């Protein structure tokens, strides 16, 4: 690294004892093989998260979380505030992009078996982060208080209520009451800007510390090839080589976000009217579509169990199994291939894609 960076780090080290950082930067390496491209997606998700935080803070300067003012404040931002349209559209698009890259990151880790020992907790913390990110999406979606958001939230929280015993309590907890009202808006705002960011930061710190501690995982196939001499073990330093490549990706993402914000600006819609009938075709955001569509296909009663309940239990069980995959796929820990889990992963992706497409038809 050049003299300037070295000088800066020495200055910090003398005051914070940050010599470890310089050591770490010097020594962190990224393995190079045919699957290296997937290494970029974790950093991309983090970058988009930072974009969300920055644009979110800017939005906080003008947003008002009450039913009388929420829609009007967003309208004000989009029509009166200089570049308000840009900040708002970037925030909305980046949210969707971030969820997409998070899923890609998660599935790439899954198929490349990066969850195997000793990285089980990285996987668990990552899955929890994924749930938190989807919580961000769900809570943030309501905040503009337009018709689509209001009814999508109504439908979404309604499903929470069908869980037995705790369902009613959970629904009232989410909504801040029996129905979706201004109380719901205030509550979702609190989740979105305080609770979830707090949880997310904590889990993110754990997740990133684990990644730095344990280094980058090399896929089993590549490891085997290296062991058998069919491939050479190559790597590049993280700083500055991989970081520069990361930055290319981040800049490209910025370009894409700007283009989306300018060419496909996020609609303001019409202010929510709680007493109006729900418009036809209400559905949640795309990342919930596959669950939404599944629930539609389930019959209202399966034997003696309520169909919706069965759906919710099914998804919860599936999520639990998915989080526990590192502990279930034990053979991979011994370096043996497990086609079953790969097949299961392909099935899951196929299921999500097909059902999302069905919901959009």
């Amino acid at each position, binding site marked *: 690294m050049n003299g300037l960076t070295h000088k800066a780090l020495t200055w910090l080290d003398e005051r914070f004892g940050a010599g470890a950082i310089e050591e770490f930067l010097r020594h962190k390496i990224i393995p190079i093989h045919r699957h290296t491209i997937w290494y970029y997606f974790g950093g991309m998700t983090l970058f988009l998260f930072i974009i969300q935080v*920055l644009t979110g803070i*800017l939005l906080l*300067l*003008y947003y*008002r979380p009450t039913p*009388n*003012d929420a829609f*009007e*404040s967003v*309208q*004000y*931002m989009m029509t*009166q*505030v*200089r*570049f*308000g349209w*840009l*900040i708002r559209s970037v925030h909305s698009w980046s949210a969707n992009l971030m969820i997409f890259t998070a899923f890609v990151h998660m599935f790439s880790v899954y198929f490349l078996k990066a969850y195997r020992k000793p990285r089980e907790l990285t996987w668990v913390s990552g899955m929890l982060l994924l749930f938190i990110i989807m919580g961000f999406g769900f809570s943030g979606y309501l905040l503009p208080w337009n018709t689509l958001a209001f009814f999508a939230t109504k439908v979404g929280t309604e499903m929470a209520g069908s869980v037995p015993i705790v369902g009613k309590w959970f629904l009232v907890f989410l909504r801040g009451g029996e129905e979706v009202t201004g109380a719901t808006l205030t509550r979702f705002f609190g989740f979105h800007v305080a609770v979830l960011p707090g949880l997310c930061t904590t889990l993110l710190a754990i997740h990133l510390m684990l990644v730095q501690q344990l280094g980058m995982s090399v896929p089993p196939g590549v490891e085997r090839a290296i062991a058998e001499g069919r491939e050479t073990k190559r790597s590049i330093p993280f700083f500055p080589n991989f970081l520069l490549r990361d930055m290319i990706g981040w*800049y490209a993402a*910025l370009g894409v976000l700007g283009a989306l914000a300018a060419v496909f600006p996020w609609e303001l819609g019409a202010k929510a009217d709680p007493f109006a009938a729900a418009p036809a075709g209400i559905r949640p955001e795309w990342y919930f579509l596959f669950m939404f569509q599944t629930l539609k296909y389930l019959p209202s009663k399966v034997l003696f169990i309520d169909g919706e309940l069965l759906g919710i239990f099914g998804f919860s069980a599936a999520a639990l199994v998915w989080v526990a995959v590192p502990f279930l796929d034990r053979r991979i820990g011994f370096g043996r291939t497990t086609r079953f889990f790969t097949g299961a992963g392909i099935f899951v992706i196929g299921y999500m894609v097909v059902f999302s497409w069905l919901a959009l038809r």
Partner: protein
Amino acid sequence: MSVPDNPEKAVQPGRRWVNVLLGGGLAASVVSFIYPALRYIIPPPVAESTSRSVVAGRAAELKNNTGKIFKFGSKPALLVRMPDGTFRAFTAVCTHLNCTVQYRDDLHQIWCACHNGLYDLEGRNVSGPPPRPLEVYEVHVQGEDVVVTRKA
């Protein structure tokens, strides 16, 4: 190291140009992000984002026993200065077929020119086709401005 001077000198300018390009590109892109954010932070001239309250005009401009139409959101509204100097404000959208009403200083009533509807100065529909009264707004005088607020 027995490296001839010339090749090193040849590499140096190239390295500088790359650094310039990189540094310049990074700086320019950062500016193109920071600039909108900075403009965004500066509050616009119209400070209030709520659409429930509007400055209808300056108190000194309206004489007694006159009315003035002003813009409230995307709808017209009527500000009336009574003979005793106090202000009253109503929506100017007639409850019959949405024409814009006006103050009649000869009748001391609010009149709709489309079908001869009449409202009194409490907003009540007293004659003609209007089926409902006019919505009444709150008026407050803040300094020189007359501020009209829609009730929640």
